[in-house]
């Protein structure tokens, strides 16, 4: 078929199409567009490492420069996924080492990364620039040493909440003296000491350093030296924010901070000594991001600090902020987009802070741009949720965690169905929702009816029957990820909505009421789903088919059955029931 533009022109046009979604659409227009698009795609996002194989990715997109891969299900963050489940990055690295010599960026989330994988990365990609690993594990500081030694053009090394086997801080000395390209460094999760002289020299010789997040081991007294050598920083994470109370230390620190004219993001603050907080005051009016979620400072100082940050867009904080602090936030920070309030004592039986639903209501009233909320608290009411929904119909992410499971509206003792119903009804662009508290099937009816844009839904200790799950699966058109724990949802809803599962990335169900028989049926009927039964009690077929499985993870895939399952995961095959992996 004739087309008016030569390939080169189309290719050039496509460089302006950057989002994955749009590029996917482009590739569906016609065969020639598919071919041009695939040859020019530079960035690939793999939301589930088992949904596709490295070979398939490489075959379709031969010129990729940047890869992002996610592994374990989200509930792995809360210890619900047993060790050894999978998510190994090594096979991906091997394949890319062979076929993507020009690869520049690797971003990983919840994957198991071995030292061998890091070593291979460091040796295989001459132009390697970005290694960003979030919630990954399986590697030690030896692997980091290889990256430091060999990646001559590294710009970004970001270890976000990784579990690193800390052999020693010596790895840091492996950055050669000729290495000057660093733009972003995040070592906050490293426990051991990093050589301070090496750190100082590195910071001093990297003129493009924009983001520096230190680990707890870097003492407060060392910060001025670092900050003075990197006044161009846009983002900074302190180490332990404590020292003896000494005027000279304070003055040096305050002076160093005031030299950072471009600083927009601040984090760290472990072991805070409140007297040193005022050292950052000069930065407050410029800050857009403040992460105090490790800072154990209490309300008066906390509220004062926060109320100085008039341009704040994102605040992560502990519940020490209390309702009064949140009121101060609401009054001062009119540009706030995202609020996360974490629990300081999640396992304590009694409340230790005066933080209630009222704090969140205040922020929803005072901050017109608020769109993303994560809030841990101990009590909630339908009235509060309805108020929040009506104040903030622009919410896009709403995650509420009431610390005790199944707690009703504390005023009326009713379930919280109406409150969450109001949220989904009013907030038409809501794409992420986490529920908690006492909830019946009714809330799921609301969600199925109104939650048309919801992409990720997290449910725990909720619902009465299969009808609840059915409402969600049949009603939520945009659903990609559904994770459920401890709900009375079972076979009927799952089997009735089997086709839906192929339109989603994944479904996690643990401690629910799905029988092994239903899993087998699903696995047999749906060849493009991997149905994984995680059950540590031994082979499921040693029990009656009506037995409920402990955990179930279902995901769509074009890669077929995976070969790296541990022996407590039972893949359901389409053939004869199941085979041991």
């Amino acid at each position, binding site marked *: 078929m004739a087309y008016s533009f030569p390939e080169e022109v189309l290719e050039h046009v496509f460089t302006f199409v950057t989002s994955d979604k749009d590029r996917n659409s482009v590739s569906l227009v016609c065969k020639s567009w598919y071919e041009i698009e695939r040859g020019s795609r530079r960035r690939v996002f793999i939301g589930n490492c088992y949904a596709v194989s490295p070979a398939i990715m490489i075959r379709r997109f031969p010129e990729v420069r940047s890869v992002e891969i996610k592994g374990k299900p989200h*509930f792995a*963050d*809360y*210890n*619900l996924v*047993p*060790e*050894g489940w999978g998510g190994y990055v090594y096979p991906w690295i091997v394949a890319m080492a062979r076929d993507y010599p020009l690869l520049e960026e690797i971003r990983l989330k919840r994957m198991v990364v071995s030292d061998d994988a890091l070593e291979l990365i460091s040796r295989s990609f001459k132009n390697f620039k970005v290694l960003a690993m979030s*919630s990954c594990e399986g590697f030690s500081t030896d692997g980091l040493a290889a990256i430091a030694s060999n990646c001559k053009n590294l710009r970004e090394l970001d270890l976000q*909440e990784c579990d690193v086997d800390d052999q020693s801080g010596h790895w840091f000395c492996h950055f050669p003296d000729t290495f000057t390209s660093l733009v972003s460094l995040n070592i906050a*999760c490293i426990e051991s000491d990093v050589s301070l002289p090496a750190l100082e020299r590195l910071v001093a010789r990297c003129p493009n350093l924009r983001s520096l997040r230190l680990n707890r081991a870097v003492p407060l007294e060392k910060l001025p030296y670092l900050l003075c050598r990197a006044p161009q920083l846009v983002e900074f994470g302190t180490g332990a924010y404590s020292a003896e109370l000494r005027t000279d230390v304070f003055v040096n620190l305050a002076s160093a901070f005031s030299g950072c004219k471009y600083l927009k993001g601040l984090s760290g603050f*472990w072991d805070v000594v409140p007297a040193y907080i005022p050292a950052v005051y000069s930065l407050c009016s410029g800050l857009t991001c403040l992460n105090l*979620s*490790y800072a*154990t400072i209490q309300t008066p100082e906390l509220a004062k600090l926060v109320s100085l940050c008039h341009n704040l867009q994102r605040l992560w904080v502990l519940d020490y902020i209390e309702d009064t602090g949140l009121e101060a936030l609401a009054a001062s920070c009119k540009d706030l987009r995202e609020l996360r309030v*974490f*629990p*300081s*004592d*999640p*396992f*304590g*039986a009694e409340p230790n802070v005066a933080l209630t639903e009222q704090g969140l209501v205040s922020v929803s009233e005072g901050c017109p741009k608020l769109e993303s909320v994560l809030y*841990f608290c101990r009590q909630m009411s339908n009235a509060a949720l309805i108020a929040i929904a009506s104040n903030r119909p622009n919410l896009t992410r709403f995650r509420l*965690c009431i*610390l*005790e*499971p*199944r707690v009703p509206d504390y005023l009326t003792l009713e379930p919280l169905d109406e409150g969450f119903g109001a949220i989904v009804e009013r907030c038409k662009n809501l794409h992420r929702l986490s529920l908690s508290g006492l909830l019946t099937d009714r809330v799921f009816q609301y969600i199925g009816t109104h939650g048309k844009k919801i992409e990720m839904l*997290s449910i*725990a*200790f909720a619902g009465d029957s299969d009808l609840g799950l059915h409402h969600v699966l049949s009603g939520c058109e945009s659903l990609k990820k559904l994770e459920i*724990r*401890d*709900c*009375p949802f079972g076979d009927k809803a799952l089997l009735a909505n089997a086709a839906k599962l192929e339109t989603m990335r994944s479904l996690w169900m*643990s*401690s*629910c*009421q799905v029988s092994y028989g239903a899993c087998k049926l699903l696995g047999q009927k749906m060849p493009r789903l991997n149905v994984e039964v995680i059950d*540590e*009690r*031994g082979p499921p077929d*040693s*029990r*009656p088919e*009506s*037995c*409920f499985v*402990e955990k179930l993870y279902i995901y769509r895939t074009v890669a077929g059955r995976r070969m790296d399952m*541990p*022996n*407590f995961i039972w893949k359901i095959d389409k053939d004869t029931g199941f085979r041991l992996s």
Partner: protein
Amino acid sequence: MAPAMSVSSLGYEVTSPNYKETELTLRLPGESRTQKSGTKRGFSERVETELNSSVGDSRGMIFEDDQLANEVISAAAKSPKSKAEVVGWPPVKSTRKLNKACKYVKVAVDGAPYLRKVDLEMYNSYQQLLTALQEMFSCFTICNYLNERKLMDPVNGSEYVPTYEDKDGDWMLVGDVPWEMFVESSKRLRLMKSSEAIGLGSSEDTFKNAQAKVVEEAFNYSAQ
């Protein structure tokens, strides 16, 4: 002395599927099993899903004895530090358990295919830790068998002794040192078959002393 709890008392029978029994129940942390809040009760999801299992299941069920269940639960609930908690709830990442230090160690069991992670800072004593281990690896029971209390697998009759690897890489018996020192120095735990554990420590006597000490300290709650 309370009557010994023999293996057979842990057996149970499931005839035809009884949906009332298989109803998913869950106890709120801190409640004992005999309390009811609404229709939801029960200590851990593992216990309730076990109700589905057949008699031939390889893992026996613990907490058949309500009184024992209540005692274990109240022992756990007594501690101001460790609440009887449901796994993974509230959904807080381990990296955020920050005010206290957080000391996660892997726990392996000889013969079991999987590892668990346990946060030693959640417990105040060996007793609490061993109780938690028992819940986690539900094949074990605190077996008051012939006056000796150990962790025992009712299926194959093996006894398991809790051991740990310390900072120097040596394998030691759990219970050798004061609790705080143990938390500070242990890198990983292993429930070792007691036949293999002989030899830990410098002599048979040391072993026996250590074992007696663990047992005494760990299981020192009211008679069963």
